[in-house]
């Protein structure tokens, strides 16, 4: 089982990211759960969402405390929340940032591998909005192919309709531009 914890701010689409990831896995015939950190949604406040993926039915009905992957949509979260909390020793932090993996490791004292991408820049260039949820999915898959890259295309198309192409573009660009720092 692969467990992913997503950090973002209310309104940035962390829950949508978790959902798209789960749908991709389910369409592949696998099992998945996607769920928000339960409660009232508050735009702008730090939020958490979760996604589990497995090749057999998933029975655990609890939050994820020891994720295999942590995905951070908003760089400002890194200084507010200890995003690596519980991250497994061999887990990967994937984050939106304008800094390099080495710079972040040094500044935040992180020992885990970090996958970095300037998702805000990509999203502004392609979507004209600082919404990075679909962008960061590309980055996540580059760091570890928890579902095949192509399996995300159908859920993206279905979810975004006439703006699907732009979202597929940011997803693809992030995949190409993500750098992994061990």
């Amino acid at each position, binding site marked *: 089982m692969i467990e992913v914890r997503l950090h973002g701010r209310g309104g940035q689409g962390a829950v949508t990211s978790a959902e798209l990831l789960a749908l991709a896995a389910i*369409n592949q015939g696998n099992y998945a759960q*996607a*769920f928000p950190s339960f409660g009232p949604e508050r735009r702008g406040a730090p939020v958490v969402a979760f996604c589990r993926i497995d090749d057999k039915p998933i029975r655990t*009905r609890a939050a994820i405390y020891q994720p295999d992957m942590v995905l951070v949509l908003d760089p400002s979260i890194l200084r507010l929340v200890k995003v690596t909390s519980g991250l497994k020793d061999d887990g990967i932090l994937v984050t939106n940032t304008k800094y390099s993996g080495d710079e972040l490791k040094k500044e935040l004292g992180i020992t885990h591998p970090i996958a970095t991408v300037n998702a805000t820049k990509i999203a502004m260039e392609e979507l004209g909005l600082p919404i990075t949820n679909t962008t960061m999915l590309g980055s996540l898959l580059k760091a570890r192919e928890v579902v095949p890259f192509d399996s995300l295309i159908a859920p993206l198309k279905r979810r975004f309709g006439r703006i699907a192409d732009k979202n597929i573009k940011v997803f693809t660009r992030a995949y190409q531009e993500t750098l992994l720092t061990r």
Partner: protein
Amino acid sequence: MGERVGIEVSLAAAEAVKMANVDVIAAYPITPQTHIVEHLSELVADGELDAEFIPVESEHSAMSVCCGSSAVGARTFTCTSSQGLALMNEIVFIAASLRLPIVMILANRSMSGPLSIWNDHTDVMSIRDCGWIQVFTENGQEVFDHVMFAFRVAESASVSLPIIINLDGFVLTHVIEPIEFWDDETVKKYLPDFKPVNQLHPDNPVTMGAFGLPSIFTEAKKAQNEALIQAKPEILKAWKEMGDLVGRHYQPVETYHAEGSETVFLTMGSFGETVSVAVDELRNQGKSVGQIKLRLWRPFPFDEFREAVRGIKRIIVLDRAVSFGGPGGPVASEIRSVLYQEENMPTITNFLCGFAGRDVTAQDYIAMYEQAEQMAQGRVRQEDYIIYGVRE
């Protein structure tokens, strides 16, 4: 069979209600039930579901509308949670006594105060004795299946009683997971048209819910109790036929490694799945542990329950509500009562946990098991119970 789709459990529940070809939906939105009624409202507005969606001003009115529409012979659905259930309370009792086969999904949530929108079983336990058939579900698939089951059982001529499908708020309602839909042909095979036993109709006037003098009230209650008890054969038949059609076999009491185990957890609802993970872990450690899941809460499956616990030494009963000032949780107190006259009655250890959205992990259940083992060294009295995980 139908398509396997990734979908939020609430939306799947609404789609199941649509596939059951419901006639009337009356509901008021309340967290965490909201997505179910929102989606039904959309389906009606978009012309995908030919039904009356009646947007009432309160849950009291919702249940009142449901009584009216069910009485004229319309297939009727409602959905609520917590305070909403409390507000419809008086009509909930009336629906059962009038033998109106309304189907309600109860997205379980704590009762305020302090104000909380999160999941536990305080709401359903507050209406334990309302006279409805009550079932619990562990996952989205079970919710989908039990919508079909509920209409089928409630409306069958030998039952004609309302039914509550309990699903845990947020823990299930807000999760996206794979669910196998039924195809229309299977629904048609399983769920006949609603033919009411008694019907309000201008051509054939009848009175429902008339004044009950002391000279008749006792008899009315005895008849109502018999009706609920006698619903069981139809409940079993409906599960059997569903198993034959879709390959998922439900039972009033389901077990997981219970036979031959010394200790079992007793669970109701979605926490049962996490407990199964803990049971696997404990068995890997060589512990003699299993699990009993109570799916049918009313009518209580006495025979199946006693059969399931035969030979078991300890039952760890998990309660998701408090009977304040009473003997622990409402489920444990009921289980003690059910087993009181049994020979070799198992020890009941009662943990109250998961109140108002407090997460309970597999590790927590393992800790409860270990604590129950320690308690076994002393003498556990009937009224002993532990509210698990209190921060002190």
